[in-house]
């Protein structure tokens, strides 16, 4: 991908492979020789069917898993996750219900990455973050169960942003929420990215979501990059046959209007 636009490269994935070894020596190649760069303020959508390696790639970039070979550099350095130090890569997961501890107040969850602040500062920051994602800060002491799915996803986004990440990895951020809430979450992500300037890695199987959010699109199939191109080009004239098939399949499923 071009990096001649001058923007800072936040994510640099270099020839990354991830092989899972099963019992009995069977090997499963989840990702094979994947390379790309992602600049600040841009969104890369990773699309493909389930099993294509999308989530594996997301987990690798977030440092939740290590590549079998190759390297991933965040802001030019290998990511080192240390307890108590928030990572510059934060994740937004598919199902906010799974991503929030039901026993903790949402304010507590959002404040997790803010342990170094004093109590007063922390509450203030949590209030700011909740307003930022469009929630009433007065509800910070309530538990996740008191919130709707869309609100929970906002809380997850607030928590991810608490650490002021350079990279936000969103794994199917809208597939567990309603259509009208999906639009709100998409707008929220667009707004937050333009004000905060983080790089965003969006994993989605929904090409129409990629259409709205992404600057560039990467198509994965069986762990291999089939195509990585600017979003306009991808949706205008996809290069790989497989991409064309994907687009046709999705067009068949979109609203049967007119």
């Amino acid at each position: 991908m071009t990096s001649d636009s001058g923007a800072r490269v936040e994510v640099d994935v270099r020839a990354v492979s991830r092989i899972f070894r099963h019992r009995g020596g069977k090997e499963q190649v989840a990702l094979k020789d994947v390379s790309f760069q992602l600049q600040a303020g841009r969104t890369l959508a990773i699309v493909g069917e389930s099993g294509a390696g999308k989530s594996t790639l997301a987990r690798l970039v977030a440092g939740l898993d290590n590549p079998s070979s190759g390297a991933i550099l965040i802001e030019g350095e290998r990511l080192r996750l240390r307890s108590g130090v928030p990572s510059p890569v934060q994740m937004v997961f598919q199902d906010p219900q799974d991503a929030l501890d039901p026993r903790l107040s949402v304010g507590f969850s959002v404040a997790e990455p803010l342990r170094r602040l004093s109590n007063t500062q922390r509450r203030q920051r949590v209030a700011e973050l909740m307003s930022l994602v469009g929630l009433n800060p007065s509800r910070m002491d309530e538990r996740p169960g008191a919130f709707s799915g869309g609100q929970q996803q906002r809380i997850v986004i607030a928590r991810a942003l608490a650490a002021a990440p350079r990279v936000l990895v969103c794994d199917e951020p809208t597939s567990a929420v309603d259509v009208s809430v999906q639009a709100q979450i998409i707008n929220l992500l667009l707004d937050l990215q333009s004000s905060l300037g983080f790089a965003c890695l969006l994993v989605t199987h929904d090409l129409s979501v990629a259409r709205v959010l992404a600057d560039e699109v990467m198509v994965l199939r069986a762990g291999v990059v089939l195509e990585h191109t600017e979003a306009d080009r991808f949706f205008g004239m996809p290069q790989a046959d497989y991409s064309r098939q994907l687009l046709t399949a999705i067009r068949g499923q979109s609203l049967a209007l007119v």
Partner: protein
Amino acid sequence: MIGVTGAEPLSGLEVTRLSVHAQQGTVKTLLVDDVSFAAPAGQTVGIVGETGAGKTLTVRAVAGLLPLRVHATGHLRIGPDAEADLDSESAMARIRGKKVGIVLQNPIAMFDPLMRIGRQIIEGVVLRKLYSADRAIERAAALFASLGLSELVLDLYPHQLSGGMSQRAAIAMALMSRPSVLVADEPTTALDANLRLEVLSLLGLVARDFDTSVILVSHDLGLVSHVCDTVVVMYAGRILEEGPTQDVLRTPQHPYTAALLSSSTTLDATPRRRLSVIPGQPPEPTDWPAACVFEPRCRHRFDLCAARRPVLHVDGSHAAACHLAFGAPAGFREDVERR
């Protein structure tokens, strides 16, 4: 599968004045507010709405599967010979699991991971002595064949099935007792995009071939548009709009339906441009507006909306609970001018 039913109006499911409320101590919270709809045999009805709209509770009430301390009132009629008041446990016991089959969102969660698929599928009907074990296995195999599954799947464990296969198996399980109504609650949410259409078409096929009323609950208008003959749009416990799918999608009469449609993502969207959204959130059941439930979020609201609950305005088979539906209904202009 079944011949032509003579008495047309008596076929299928008819739900009249269904309300659901939760009881917590002395506090009663209304969760579904006076919902009536019909699902004719052989047809697929989509119930669409946001989380908390009451769509799942509505179909769970129909299936007699409400959670503890959640109660329904209203009336069910299934085919010519089955009727039940929703608040009568003994009447619902005759419906539950026999007249109404249900398919849930996550097919894997419907199966016990330690039991072979076949045994689980026949368990319910054998326990209730609807079939002997041998006959039940025969029926399961026949159902599998018509749903495009190999008989061999009966001997597999749930983890050996792909998502699409397990949803098919779940549909087969729901159909075992020859229900007149098949309820599918978000049956494709847990599936891959390329499998969704497949499972949905299967539901359409079930409706036609088994002469079943299929109720498809979904939050996705786009998916519903492909398989449903009619669609019911719910919001805050009420039906806001219903009608033939294409009418509702092409000429929505309720601002909520229109707003839902315009906030959907499409491949033709302008990249990086904010979507039009419905401002705010659906109200909590404890503070549903008394007049029009959508009024606080509606772009077209005017003084009447907060004052009077809109009735369902009907135009042929298309109906909408909005004061502005189908142009200006009788009496509507005078009301406005008088204010």
